[in-house]
């Protein structure tokens, strides 16, 4: 709290009102999740965890989303750098295209991707010849997940690069470094925290994708689709433990990744 808010009773009253309003929002976010977790008895969770279908689906969801994130980061991070540093024609259009997946309904995104990777399409046909089955396979899941989650990585990385003082890059160049060396030794390490944040966000967004994935590859079944299927076939009681289990696994992974990236940053500072 700064000295202004300390000595101003008017601001204090305002802060109280804002805190109360914020509390309502937080409650709205936490209550359904907490209710779901509390509504699933532990023995039921253990039983669900023992099911091969559930375990397989959680594992599939985790690795496909991670694979999509890592695969696309190779090209998305350089694109983010260009967006942060260079002026080029149609830059605004490029930025708008990157944000497109956020506003497109995910079922529509699924339909679009299906057309793009179907065996009759150029990419799908090439994949089939190389032995990669997009439709109904992990490759299709990866494509669908990446399509909807890429904006999170690109935007976070772009903000990270933009926050690196350009002067540091100029000094590095003046010391004889090539632009490639400047990117890998100055820009990338200094934007690292934002990039990791973007990677985590992209991974998380991929994990939670339902609409696009369900259209591209209902089977093999990813967890969000499994939860929907169980809810449709057997009702809330059977869907809930899977959801809680998936949520728990995701939380553990995110906390672990955040912890790792924080340790790295502490070492650097």
């Amino acid at each position, binding site marked *: 709290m700064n000295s202004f808010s300390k000595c101003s009773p008017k601001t204090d009253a305002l802060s109280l009102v804002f805190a109360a309003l914020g509390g309502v929002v937080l409650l709205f976010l936490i209550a359904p999740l907490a209710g779901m977790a509390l509504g699933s008895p532990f023995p039921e969770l253990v039983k669900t965890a023992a099911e091969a279908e559930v375990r397989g689906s959680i594992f599939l969801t985790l690795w496909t989303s991670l694979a999509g994130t890592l695969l696309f980061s190779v090209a998305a991070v350089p694109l983010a750098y260009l967006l942060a540093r260079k002026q080029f024609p149609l830059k605004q259009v490029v930025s708008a295209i990157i944000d497109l997946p956020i506003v497109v309904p995910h079922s529509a995104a699924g339909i679009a991707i299906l057309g793009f990777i179907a065996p009759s399409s150029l990419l799908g046909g090439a994949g089939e010849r190389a032995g990669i089955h997009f439709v109904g396979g992990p490759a299709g899941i990866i494509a669908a997940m990446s399509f909807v989650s890429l904006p999170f990585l690109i935007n976070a990385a772009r903000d990270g690069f933009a926050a690196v003082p350009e*002067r540091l890059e100029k000094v590095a160049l*003046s*010391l*004889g*470094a090539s632009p490639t*060396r400047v990117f890998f030794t100055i820009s990338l390490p200094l934007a690292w925290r934002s990039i990791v944040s973007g990677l985590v966000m992209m991974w998380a967004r991929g994990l939670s994708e339902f609409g696009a994935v369900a259209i591209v590859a209902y089977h093999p079944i990813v967890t969000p689709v499994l939860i929907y299927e169980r809810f449709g076939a057997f009702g809330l009681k059977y869907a809930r433990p899977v959801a809680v289990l998936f949520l728990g696994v995701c939380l553990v992974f995110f906390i672990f990744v955040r912890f790792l990236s924080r340790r790295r940053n502490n070492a650097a500072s």
Partner: protein
Amino acid sequence: MLQVEGAHIRLGGFSLRDVSFTVDEGGYFVLLGASGVGKTVLLEALIGLLPLDAGRILWKGEDITHERLQKRRLGLVYQDQALFPHMPVWRNIAYGMQGAGYARKETRRQVEALADEVGAGDLLQRYPGTLSGGEAQRVALARALAMQPRCLLLDEPLSALDTHARGEMRALLRTFHRKGQTVVHVTHDYEEALALASHIGIMENGTVVQTGSPEEVFHHPKSEFVARFIGIRNVFPGILERNEPPDQDVAPFVSHGVQFWIMTKATPGKGMMIVRSEDITLSRTRPDSSAQNCFSGRVVDVVPARIGLEVYVDIGVMAAALITAGSAERLEVRPGQQVFLSFKASAARFMEE
């Protein structure tokens, strides 16, 4: 020898026009100009970060205008140091050498030697975020020097430092200059320029309006801007009239209806009279001296200067006199006080327009 010939740069709000100057090898060239005049842009163009729109940059007669930045071998130090925050001091200093393929042993030896030279020997394992402004500036200097630049470009290297650190840094710069390092130093501080420069250039409106030794520039400023910029308070525009009789060595000069006497043989006409404030004497009674310029006036303001006090006196035009605190006390100088202001005709200089 570094030569800049007719450099033109347009960048955003800046526009540098026809900038020309020469820096002798082993020389210390200070480019003086107000903030925002485009001095940093000029340095970035010299080092190769920005292209020139027109003009040439030469090193020992060889045109390096289009030479790649890596081959120019010029070193740059920014005012805010721009140290790499994620690297310890030693890696900051070693950055250029590591990229240039020096052997690890050689790099280490050079880094340690340089760090010792700039007084940063005990900072090598520290991160930039933990350094004081002076320490960071010394590390930035060592980092630029590690690549053995043919010429060191300094962008306001003392401006962000406290008085103590400034003194240390100044001594350091003088040491490297004495060892033969060629330096181009841009600043808005004319005292900094006086303390370090072997040559000075003055920038005004995006171009270099005067170059010369510090003595030349300070004693013969070419324009009112230069005179005011280097701290001369008394610059009066007016008309120099004809000597009567013509062989006399003093001539009347009229500015805003006030008539002065200047020792000059210059051709009559429009121009400026310059008198340094330290050459002006104040007294409570009309002085009986050889000073031909003597005026009665009212004290308008008394301002502490770096040393002594500057007293502004309204004699029809505003004139400034630099006096000691002791004199101010003895004369009881305060605003509203009537005083006599005098200076010799030989202390006044006429500059043709």
